[in-house]
């Protein structure tokens, strides 16, 4: 231990800490300044940036003693006298905060830029921002709002970018910041790793490291004997159900007889420090008999393939999914042109910036027994009561966490409580169980709180990703441009465990003829087990993959027919009265034609503004330019006959003469803006100002079940639940008021926060007080059931609604290097109704940039079941410098049952971007990639060799 002197946010501090400390550790763990976040610990993501003597550095790999004597500024040091820094205010105004995990890093890096420019008396340009923030990543926003916010904070008059929407109601339709954004921009927001409990232990997981092997023996004695180790658990220590799983319960809590992928958990350790826990892992010896590896979904179906789950009846076949419509022979016979290609998409990684973290707190935990208390200032609505096993974590499905943990502990679900902390992104990757069960087991075993924070490498290794697919698709069309038939065959790499494979690949299958009215369709999909990382949910849920194949083929067919790609799509696009490939007749809310028309108008406007005629492609000097288009659709809600419901509680009260309302539900916020939607629904129905509605999410003891946060469903189902709960509560209050005046309730009405009848008025304050006085509840729980849907194969309505979207990309390809730049994306999305245009636009831009990564940069590479992509540095998500100009239109074809007509948007925007970009590249240089991410090396070589198609994107074995 040595003396470290730092001036932190203006105050000198002296610490006695080991010289091996990193600055981030000192700030977060020694000084409790948890506003500084750690996303990677490898100097890659930049979100841990703080200022050292005014200069931004990555505090995660900055030795603390290098900063000896320096002045440090963190996000906590930006507010002055309770006033937000202009950057903080601008981030709020522009909706540049979603999950918020990157926000402190973005703001600190931007602050250094602003300070530097101010000192040099220079204006801040967009280019400056792109240089300064090049390596400070955000996975949620897509950066356009970030750039605008920084420009505004530098004193320029830049308004938030909000597309035109329908005239707003009182609250619905207004651009408002997410209620939790303020905590996120100030560094006060609490994510799981920010919680510290007295007496807490630190845990690590022993992972298989080999992709397929039989376990002969697990030896833990040496690890258990290491001083400071409090518990080492293996499968034998799981008292209840041995497996977990969201659909199929096939994933061992801790492996007993065999391991099926390199990330499998074999043992867990809790110790006094992370270091000791990590050292203990090295002492656990597992004797394996290695088995042959199956690492490809097609190979997995071969008769001689190694079998991943021997007990299953169908070998490695996880699910065969079928779509049948019409008569294929007739369909192709009627076609004048038939195009058939095989496409490949890679496994991709959600790369939420917050690695998984869980804290288990044992039943009966008493902090004072460990000489501490729990800081009430850190409570942010959480009631620390530990009368049952409690798990703090970032999760997309609190109630399923509870159920699965309870099953493993062998206790009823009510004896487990999940408290959802803020989540630094999820995108589907936080639906499956991570360490929730492990920390619960360790906490109960040791009688202490236990925290398990995954390293970035472990997060990459462990969690389910987007399915790699191989998609053969055959499209037939007539000369007049009408599609006659689509036949497709898909193989999806489900990896070692089922996770959500069946559901995801079903979505890929049912969307495999695109948002078109095709008379004859046959699709077969094989979701396969392999020894790769499991695959599950990732924004787009299978449709990202099939849309790429469908839309690539559409361009090829259009070319064969000599038709304009847009005109060809408009001939076939679904409209009201059309029928999907599963036989669902569209009765309402199909804004696709309007989306396509909007995108076409914006493409043309681009050229009009330059005083030239529209053209698909052109060259200037050694650069080649072209537009490409992609359209897509995405179901809202679970559909397929699954009961789809959500419950919400709305409670009202009066404090200091002011009415407040609180919405509670166990749906998850991972940055997508759900609290804003729920608060708006309640505010609208109760006639309350938005700012007077609080939202509490994901505490299973206080919030009813909102169901999984997946399938773009929460605005629809939880939004409806909140709306109906608020409405029912309002009706009750109206009754209370009517009773108070002794008048029939029918004579009363409600407007602008007031009940009135025949000239008599009563406000909400009185209504609530009278209700309380008469012992009537001032809260209401509502369970909302989405309209019934039909299982696949039975025809009828498979889904309650669909969102539709069209996007066009303008790309530039460099003649010398093959380097690709996306210059502009124009998009139009039919979302039913824009409940909050600010957070909605954030979803659209973030989705587009994420999908740009899918097209150009992202591939999680597995080789023989071992991840090549073992650090963040090997997986590049788009950075701010990749951000093109985004022009966005919002189309609002309301759907009858959605709240105020809204449908889901969370996934839609990240579906058509990939084909739009790949089609643009083909238009620019004549080389079509049938696989992503597009590889400039292969592109250039193919192009110079005069080839027109490339079968391999980056990262495949050629």
């Amino acid at each position: 231990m040595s003396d470290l002197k730092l001036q932190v946010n203006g105050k000198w501090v002296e610490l006695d800490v080991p010289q091996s400390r990193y600055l981030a550790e000192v700030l977060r763990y020694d000084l409790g300044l948890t506003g500084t976040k750690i996303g990677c610990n490898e100097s890659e993501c930049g979100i841990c940036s703080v200022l050292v003597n005014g200069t931004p550095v990555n505090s995660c790999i900055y030795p603390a003693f290098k900063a000896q004597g320096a002045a440090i500024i963190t996000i906590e040091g930006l507010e002055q006298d309770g006033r937000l820094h202009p950057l903080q205010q601008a981030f709020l105004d522009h909706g540049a905060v979603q999950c918020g995990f990157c926000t402190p890093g973005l703001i600190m890096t931007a602050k250094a830029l602003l300070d530097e420019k101010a000192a040099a008396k220079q204006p801040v340009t967009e280019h400056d921002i792109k240089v300064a923030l090049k390596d400070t990543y955000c996975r949620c926003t897509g950066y356009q709002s970030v750039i605008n916010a920084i420009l505004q904070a530098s004193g320029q008059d830049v308004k938030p970018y909000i597309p035109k929407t329908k005239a707003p109601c009182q609250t619905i339709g207004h651009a408002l910041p997410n209620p939790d954004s303020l905590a996120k921009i100030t560094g006060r927001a609490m994510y799981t790793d920010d919680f510290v409990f007295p007496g807490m232990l630190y845990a690590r997981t022993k992972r298989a490291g080999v992709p397929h092997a039989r376990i002969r023996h697990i030896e833990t004695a040496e690890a258990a004997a290491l001083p400071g180790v409090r518990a080492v658990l293996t499968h034998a220590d799981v008292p209840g159900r041995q497996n977990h799983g969201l659909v199929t319960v096939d994933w061992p809590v801790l492996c007993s007889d065999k391991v099926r992928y390199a990330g499998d958990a074999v043992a867990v350790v809790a110790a006094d420090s992370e270091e000791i826990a990590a050292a203990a892992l090295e002492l656990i010896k597992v004797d394996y008999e290695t088995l042959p590896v199956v690492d490809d979904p097609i190979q997995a179906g071969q008769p001689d393939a190694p079998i991943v789950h021997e007990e299953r009846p169908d070998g490695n076949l996880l699910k065969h999914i079928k779509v049948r419509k019409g008569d294929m022979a007739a369909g192709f016979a009627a076609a004048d042109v038939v195009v058939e290609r095989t496409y490949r998409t890679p496994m991709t990684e959600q790369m939420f910036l917050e690695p998984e973290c869980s804290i288990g707190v044992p039943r009966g935990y008493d902090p004072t027994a460990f000489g501490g208390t729990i800081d009430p200032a850190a409570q942010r609505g959480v009631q620390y009561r530990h009368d049952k096993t409690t798990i703090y974590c970032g999760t997309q499905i609190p109630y399923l966490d509870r159920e699965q943990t309870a099953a493993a502990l062998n206790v009823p679900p009510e004896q487990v409580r999940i408290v959802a902390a803020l989540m630094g992104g999820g995108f589907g990757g936080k639906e499956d169980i991570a360490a929730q069960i492990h920390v619960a087991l360790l906490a109960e075993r040791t009688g202490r709180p236990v925290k398990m924070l995954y390293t970035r490498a472990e997060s990459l290794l462990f969690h389910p990703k987007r399915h790699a697919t191989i998609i053969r698709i055959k499209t037939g069309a007539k000369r007049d441009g009408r599609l006659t038939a689509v036949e497709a065959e898909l193989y999806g790499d489900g990896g070692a465990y089922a996770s959500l494979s069946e559901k995801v690949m079903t979505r890929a299958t049912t969307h495999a003829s695109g948002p078109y009215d095709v008379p004859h369709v046959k699709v077969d999909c094989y979701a396969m087990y392999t020894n790769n990382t499991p695959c599950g949910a990732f924004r787009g849920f299978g449709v990202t993959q099939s849309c790429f194949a469908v839309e690539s083929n559409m361009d090829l067919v259009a070319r064969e027919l000599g038709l304009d790609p847009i005109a060809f799509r408009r001939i076939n696009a679904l409209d009201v009265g059309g029928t999907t490939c599963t036989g669902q007749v569209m009765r309402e809310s199909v804004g696709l034609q309007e989306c396509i028309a909007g995108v076409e108008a914006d493409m043309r406007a681009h050229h009009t503004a330059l005083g030239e005629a529209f053209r698909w492609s052109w060259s200037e000097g050694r650069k080649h330019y072209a537009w490409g288009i992609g359209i897509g659709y995405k179901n809202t809600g679970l559909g397929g006959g699954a009961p789809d419901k959500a419950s919400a509680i709305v409670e009202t009260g009066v404090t200091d003469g002011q009415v407040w309302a609180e919405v509670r539900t166990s749906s998850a916020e991972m940055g997508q803006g759900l609290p804003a939607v729920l608060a708006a629904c309640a505010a609208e129905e109760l006639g309350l100002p938005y700012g007077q509605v609080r939202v509490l999410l994901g505490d299973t003891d206080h919030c009813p079940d909102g169901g999984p946060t997946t399938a773009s469903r929460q605005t629809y189902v939880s939004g409806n639940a909140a709306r109906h709960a608020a409405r029912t509560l309002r009706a009750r209050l109206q009754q209370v008021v009517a009773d108070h005046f002794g008048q029939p309730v029918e004579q009363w009405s409600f407007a602008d926060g007031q009940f009135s009848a025949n000239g008599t008025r009563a406000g909400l304050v009185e209504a609530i007080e009278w209700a309380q006085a008469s012992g009537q509840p001032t809260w209401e729980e509502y369970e909302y059931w989405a309209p019934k849907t039909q299982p696949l194969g039975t025809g009828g309505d498979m889904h309650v609604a669909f969102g539709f979207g069209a996007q066009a990309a303008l790309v530039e390809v460099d003649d010398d290097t093959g380097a690709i730049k996306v210059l502009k994306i124009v998009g139009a999305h039919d979302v039913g109704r824009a409940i909050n245009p600010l957070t909605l636009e954030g979803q659209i831009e973030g989705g587009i940039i994420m999908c740009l990564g899918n097209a150009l940069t992202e591939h999680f590479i597995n080789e023989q079941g071992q991840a090549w992509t073992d650090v963040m540095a090997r997986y590049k998500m788009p950075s701010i410098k990749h951000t093109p100009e985004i022009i966005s239109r919002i189309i609002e074809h309301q759907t009858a049952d959605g709240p105020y007509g809204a449908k889901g948007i969370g996934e839609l925007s990240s579906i058509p971007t990939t084909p739009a970009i790949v089609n643009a590249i083909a238009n620019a240089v004549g080389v079509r990639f049938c696989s992503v991410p597009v590889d400039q090396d292969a592109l250039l070589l193919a192009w110079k060799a005069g080839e027109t198609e490339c079968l391999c994107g980056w990262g495949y074995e050629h």
Partner: protein
Amino acid sequence: MAYWNDYYTPHTIEEAVEILGRYEGRACMIGGGTDLLLEIQQGHRPRMDALVDPTRIEGLDQIVEEDGWLVIGAGVTHTRIVNDPRMRQHGTCLVESCGVIGGPQVRNVATLAGNIAHALPAGDGTIGTLALGGEVQVAQASGLAWQPMEEIFIGPGQSTVDPKRMLIARIRFRPTGEHEGSAFRRVMRPQGIALPMIGMAARVRLAGEQITEVRIAIGPAAKVPLLAVKTMQALVGQTPSDKTFAAAAETALAEVQLRTSRHRASAAYREEMIRTQLPLTLAKAVERAHTGQAEPEGVGA
């Protein structure tokens, strides 16, 4: 286990050497740590008992002009190099090469000395320095000595400067003067590879319409950062033109050893890049020699 125990910030070169000696191979130099610490963390090299940070050694935290050299101390970060007006004018290709390393947070702490000591065949700052004719001053128990930079490299990641026993105290080069110019270009892929597909730098001196002196560095084009000696020789006495540069690229192709590095670049692509990028690099250096204008390009790209 901690990745290191003790962190030293000595004030003199002698002190640094003394600490290294005292630890007998269990201590190691650290600049910004942007290579070193990640390699230790990721298990690619052993943990250290001590780290020795030269950034507070007097005189090594600056860039100075001395006897007709520009001298860069071991504590100087890429950001400092990029922002230094003397560097921008007289070591343009070094500014351009340091200016594309990582992002600002990395450049704010990472040093040129660390980049050179890391000895990667395609280290960007290394390529820029090599083209300028850089020399390194190595400090060890036996004292201080200057060495042409190309002499220290042995193989990928290997140099004669063992950071557990000695340090690079300074780096120097002759500033480009009248009728001189330099330029750097690199090709990077946007996917998950932190190293360039290929990078190259050139320094030229003109007399009238003739190239009288030229240095060209390319990486990765051999097991060590490559000084393209044959190409340099072939260019001397030539008149700059598209044809000359195209011929130079062909000469370079004959002396490089290009490999396919998995997921990073194919040999065929690298070959194509030497063909297209080397002429552009030479042309830019010549243009700067002609005009005397040397505004660095691509910094922060």
